[in-house]
Each structure stands twice: as structure tokens, then as C-alpha cells.
């Protein structure tokens, strides 16, 4: 059973920017990310441009936002794979309400409402009824996707009102440089990283995931903590879904197919353990960035999809294997 890192989390108040941002386990990831960037910078002359780097940040932000939520669920000792269908499902209330009311705010509210419902269902089934969370969320993954197909008749729902604000949300850039999705992702990452590291709730999540028995003895309401984690995860995936809908300009029934694999792989790559209680949100974010830069860079090298799949697979094995090996060292 891994040690609960909550103790070290509260004790790491030593100065130094690097130390504040990243703990030791994350330095390996930063090095890996820099290595990936360096490799592609040397291999392709179009990789290391401001335009391309900011592009990748924008592209990574969807997986990063959902990844923060999934990582929190992982840390609490549960799993959430329903996010792949959820990002497609929330676009339906978003677009239909927007088409009906011409209000972005109402559309977003409707999307968040659906996300909240899904989170409540997942959380209730997994935390309170005690159904294994992989099964629960695999079930909701199927149900939501099937529901989207049934509701839309397997057609995309186009955005008829074409609000400029909605277009800008996923496609615009601050000062024509930084994509808005990247800013939103970074802001959410900072907020939740702060919560997980410095608030009681974060400590509870680590404790519940690290050792539920001890957490229970310490007086934490284990079920409620897990329930909350599922709601956070669904709401964050909803934000990803809203940004995706803006980038796609419609509610696309096939959006997000396989997104759950992408997010889970990135989060685990970032050192968040599936067995609970271990990992950090910065690690998860770094995992997402590594995979995004890898995918972008391999594309720049004009490598076909099949090679990209093979290389990404081996890199996941190598990276997670290395991480596990490091963890076993005294």
C-alpha cells in the first residue's frame, strides 16, 4: 500500500519556484517534456515556432481540463472513464439551448446541468451503492453514447445562431497569441492544484484514496468525498465538452470517441496511480502535455498514424515502467 503523500504535501513549504511548482516526482516529467520538445525542435524546422507551440497548448487543453478531474477521481481510489461520451453529450443541451435562446450563458448552464447529473449518477452508483467505478463509468460511457445516437439520430446538431462569443471561446486567442482554451485549462489547473494541496478537501481525497480504512477511522466521510470527486470530474469534462463544441461549431455525435483512453493514459503517464492516493494534478497536466507534443511532433515528421500509435504505445510502457521502477527504489 503506498504511503499517503498528504503529510509531505502540507510540509513542502520550502521556497524556490521550481520547488513550489513541481515536486520531485514531477521533475522527471518536466525533463521528459523538455526532451520531447528538444527532439522535435531538432527534427522539424516548423515545430519550434510560437504559432505551433501555442497551437499545441490549445489542443492539449481539452484533455488537460478533463484530465484534472479524472486525476482527482484516480487519487480518491476510483476510476472515471465516462468522460469520452460526456464531452459529446453535453454539447447537445449546449447547442439546442443556444439555438433556442441565443444566449451563450444559458447554453453553458444547460451543459453544466447535464454534467452535474451524470456526476451525481456516477458518484451515487460508485460511492454510495458501491458498484465498482470502472463498471459504473463504463456503463455510463455506453449509455451516454447510445443516448446521444438515439437523440440525434446519428446526425450532428449544427449551431444555427453562430454567436461570436461562442466561436471565440474555443477558437479565439488572447492578444492573438494564447488560445482561450489554454488559459481556461491553466486557470482550472491552478485552482484545483491549490485545493488538492492546501485545502482540507484535497487532504481528504488523498487519505481516502491512500487508505480508506484509516480515512474512515480519522472521521472522514469516505463516500461523500468520493461522490464529490465524481461530480468534479463530470463538471470538468463538461467544460472540455463546451470548448470542444465551440471548436467543432456543433454538437457532434461522434465527438470524443476514445477520448477517455487518451485522458486516462495521459493521467497515468503523469504519475497518478490507479490504485489511489498517489500523484499530483501538475503531474497529470504534464502527462497530457507530453502526449500532445508527441502527437503534434510525430505529425510534423509526416509519420503515418500507424507509427504514431506504435510509438505512443511504447512510450507509455517505457514511461510508466520507469515511474514504477523509481517508486520501488528506496
Amino acid at each position, binding site marked *: 500500500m503506498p504511503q499517503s503523500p498528504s503529510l509531505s504535501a502540507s510540509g513542502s513549504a520550502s521556497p524556490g519556484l521550481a520547488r513550489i511548482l513541481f515536486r520531485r516526482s514531477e521533475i522527471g516529467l518536466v525533463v521528459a517534456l523538455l526532451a520531447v520538445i528538444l527532439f522535435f525542435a531538432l527534427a522539424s524546422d516548423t515545430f519550434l515556432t510560437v504559432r505551433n507551440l501555442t497551437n499545441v497548448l490549445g489542443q492539449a487543453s481539452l484533455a488537460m481540463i478533463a484530465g484534472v478531474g479524472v486525476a482527482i477521481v484516480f487519487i480518491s481510489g476510483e476510476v472515471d472513464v465516462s468522460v469520452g461520451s460526456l464531452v459529446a453529450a453535453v454539447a447537445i443541451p449546449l447547442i439546442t439551448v443556444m439555438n433556442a435562446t441565443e444566449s451563450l450563458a444559458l447554453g453553458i448552464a444547460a451543459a453544466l446541468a447535464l454534467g452535474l447529473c451524470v456526476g451525481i449518477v456516477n458518484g451515487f452508483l460508485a460511492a454510495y451503492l458501491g458498484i465498482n467505478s470502472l463498471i459504473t463509468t463504463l456503463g455510463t460511457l455506453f449509455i451516454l453514447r447510445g443516448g446521444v445516437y438515439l437523440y440525434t439520430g446519428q446526425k450532428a446538431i449544427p449551431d444555427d445562431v453562430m454567436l461570436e462569443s461562442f466561436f471565440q471561446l474555443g477558437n479565439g486567442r488572447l492578444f492573438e497569441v494564447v488560445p482561450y482554451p489554454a488559459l481556461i485549462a491553466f486557470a482550472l489547473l491552478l485552482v484545483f492544484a491549490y485545493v488538492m494541496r492546501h485545502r482540507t478537501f484535497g487532504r481528504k481525497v488523498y487519505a481516502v484514496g491512500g487508505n480508506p480504512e484509516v480515512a474512515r477511522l480519522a472521521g472522514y466521510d469516505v463516500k461523500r468525498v468520493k461522490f464529490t470527486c465524481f461530480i468534479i470530474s463530470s463538471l470538468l469534462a463538461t467544460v472540455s465538452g463546451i470548448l*470542444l463544441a465551440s471548436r467543432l461549431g456543433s454538437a457532434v455525435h461522434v465527438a470524443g470517441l476514445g477520448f477517455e483512453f487518451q485522458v486516462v493514459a495521459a493521467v497515468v503517464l503523469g504519475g497518478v496511480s490507479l490504485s489511489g492516493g498517489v500523484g499530483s494534478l501538475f503531474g497529470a497536466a504534464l502527462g497530457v502535455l507530453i502526449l500532445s507534443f508527441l502527437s503534434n511532433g510525430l505529425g510534423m515528421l509526416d509519420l503515418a498514424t500507424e507509427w504514431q500509435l506504435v510509438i505512443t504505445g511504447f512510450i507509455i510502457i517505457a514511461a510508466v515502467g520507469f515511474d514504477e521502477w523509481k517508486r520501488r527504489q528506496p
Partner: protein
Amino acid sequence: MRKLLIGLLATSAVAVMVTGSAFAEKMPKKVGYVVNYATHEWYQNVIKGMKDRAAQLGFEVEVKDANLDAAKQIAAAEDFMSQGVDVLIITPVNEDAVVPLLRRAKQENMPIVLEGNPVKGMTTLVAICDYDTGYHAGVEAGKYAKEHLGGKAKVMNVGLPLLSATVLRSNGFMDGIKTEVPDAVMVHDLDGGGNPDRSFEVSAAALAQNGDVNVIYGINDSSSLGGLQAWKAAGKSQDDLLVVGTGGEGLAFINAIEKEPSYKIEAAMFPEKVGFTAIDAAVKLYNKEEVPSWIVSPTTPMLGDGWKKYYSVDGNVRTINWDAVNAVKAPDKCMKTAADLKK
């Protein structure tokens, strides 16, 4: 092998140069193609046609694969734009999902050729007519049914309701077959997912429910073959059966026509020609020439050995006969399009 291919390309290049009007035009340096699903045989051959044509005209086509992921498609197009290609060609994963992308491309003056289906705000589209393809194959199937199947047509449609293009093919097939056999019926309307194992599974269940079928129509080759395999696995004889495939995507249909007695009609869609036409359209856009908003790429039903006119096979490589394919006339307008489905 490679030399042989280059040789073939060179000869076909000469043939094309004569017909093409590309001499006076400025050539782009690099054209980017974001394909929706590169591992599919159909798109493999579209890409082949593009690369052939671009090689003839002396420039480069670079391909990025969205792998059926709408979000990845946008990312790939973004990457191309920041890499600085001269023209983008896109086969949308979903038509509605590229509307914002077209808007951004317009802001950056990036010309875009679409392949597949029309999209709001597009400049030009290269596409086959899906309805017409199904329709003409349907007419031929009707004639065959009159001659060999006693004038009856009970159709199992191994379809794919997910895409408007494939729905159009199925509708066209039924409308076409009814021109010859007015009381033709669709006994089963299935979702075979466009892949062979799923098609097999749903066809097996459907045939068990009601095996009184004498025509199997597949919206692509995998679907028709999956349906046929289910027929064979149910222990039925192919004597009074007609199988009609669509696409002519690779070697699978050639193999089936050669070996399966019931596989008689293939609606050829010439993916290579689609790629060829898309590159020509890209060159025109680059030169800021007027292009029609809808460029139709030809299709035609091939009966029995008819495929040999358009393709030759050497081992595992099939080679297109450009002369024959370029001679197939395309209609100016499709009989029906996706817009008609929404009505």
C-alpha cells in the same frame, strides 16, 4: 516493383498532361490533406491518386490523419496552417464539425478544398454522387433480378445510418432497383457499422429472423462481404442470390467477384480519381481561378468482369487505368444530396 510503378505513373502522366490544362498555371509548393480515416482502403487510394497527380504537376502533398476523431482533425488542420501549406484539402470527419475551421481558414486566407460532403461556408467540394452511385447499381441489380432471379428482389441492406453519404447510397439503390422491379422490397435495413465483423454479426441475426432474401446490398465492400459471409455461414446456397457491393475500395471486391458466384455487381467510385480531381481543384484555388462549388467525381456500376477495364492487379498491387477512368463521364449535378435527406 517501385520502378515499375514509377514507369506506370510516368506513362499515365503523359496521358493526363494532354487533357489537363495545368501548363500555364503557377504550382503550389505544398498541399496539405487532412484525411478523416487514413487506414481505410478507400482513403489509401484517394491519397494515392493525390500523390500521383501532385507528382505529375511537380509538388508535394503531405497527409495528416484525423483517425475518425473530429477534434484531432481540427488540430491537424491547425498544424498545417502553422506549417505554412499553400492549400488545404479536407475530408471532414463530420460535416458540421468543420464550420469553425473554415471560418478560421478564411480569416487567414487559406484556400480549402473539401472532399466528401458539402459544408456551410465552403468554397469548393470534390465529391462523388452517393445517391447516383447507389441508383445506377440498383438499376443494374434490377435488370439482373429480371433475368436471373425470376423478377423478384428482396433486399437486405447492410447499411450505415451514421453517415448521410451511406444512407444516400442505400436510398439510391432501392429507388434504382424499383425502376426495373417495381415491387422490390427492403426486407432488412441493418446497421453494419461499415466494418466486416459487425456486418457479419447483424446479417447473421437478420437472416435467422427472416432468410427470405435474394439481394444483399452493402454500402461499402466490407458491408456486402460481411453480409455474404453471414449468408454462407448460415449454410445457404448462392444460386439465387445477388450481392452488390459499393466503392471498389481495394482488392477485396476483385477477390470476391473472382471467387464468389453471387458477387456480380460492384458500384465503382474510383477513389484515385477523387484524389486526382481534388489536386486539380487545389491548383485552381491556388491560382485564384473560378471553380464550381461542386465538382463531381465519376462513378459507375461494374458488372462481372467489368472491373478489368479500369484496374489491373499484380500480386497485391492494383493499378488504375487512368485512360478508362478519365473517360467515365460524371454528371454535372447529383440527383439527390444530403440536403434532400434533411427535408
